[in-house]
């Protein structure tokens, strides 16, 4: 699966990213939708604002979070459940997302991305007229 990802990214002439996503963790996400927008929450513990890269390329939303190396980090842990690796995850998004008004916030290691729907993609109620 990793191989497939790498190839599809490489096709987009982004060999740099392909090499960067090789040893990454897949962050857990929640994705919910209402009539105005699709909202994504991603757990990125250890990622500061400077290390975060949220990228939209045509129909792909890419999230890359770089772990900030800690100043007091020692030679390596005795017990490790979470290796200090970068995070990467990508999603395809549909035509209905208004690319110009996407907003991203990072608070306490949680990324929130709001993808608003364009006006014409929002559901409309049709009035029924009685003759």
């Amino acid at each position: 699966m990793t191989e497939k990802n790498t190839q599809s990214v490489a096709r987009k002439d982004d060999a740099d990213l392909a090499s960067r996503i090789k040893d990454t963790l897949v962050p857990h996400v929640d994705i919910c939708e209402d009539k105005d927008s699709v909202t994504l929450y991603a757990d990125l513990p250890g990622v500061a604002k400077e290390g975060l890269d949220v990228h939209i390329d045509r129909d792909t939303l890419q999230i890359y979070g770089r772990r900030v190396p800690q100043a007091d980090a020692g030679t390596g842990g005795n017990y490790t459940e979470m290796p200090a690796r970068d995070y990467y995850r990508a999603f395809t998004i549909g035509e209905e997302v208004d690319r110009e008004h996407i907003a991203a916030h990072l608070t306490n290691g949680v990324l929130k991305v709001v993808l608003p729907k364009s006006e014409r993609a929002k559901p409309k109620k049709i009035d029924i007229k009685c003759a």
Partner: protein
Amino acid sequence: MQVRWYDGYVPTFNDFFRLRDELDQLFDIGLPLSNIRSVPRGTFPAINIEEQKEAVCIDAYLPGVEPKDVELTIEENTLAIKGRRETGNGGRNYHRRERFSGNFSRIVSLPEGLDPDKAEARYHDGILSITIARAEEKKPKQITVSIG
């Protein structure tokens, strides 16, 4: 999955055994020989422990948790991390719910000889770092060798 045709690892197969162990961990099928206190993959929060010369550092991965919602207690030589994380958004339609939501609690056994009075906790970018200093008399001491 735990059938072995050799006692212990043979150098040639080290990488294969390691790979198999990692796959076992990945799918949680290392049974029936898993540690009685081991936790399943994806237990929240994930914890890293590092023993340093002067202290023991425990990192708990708690993204999106307010520090005031976490309760840390040291008793005997165990550290308890308890709290609550809410990820709900008031009944909106979910496509994916992978993030942990609800009450969490983890107990960590600490090595001997720590000084609970010299413990401090810091929260940054979703990681809670707990540092507990070693008691003075338990720190490793260097002995100088004199010639003569």
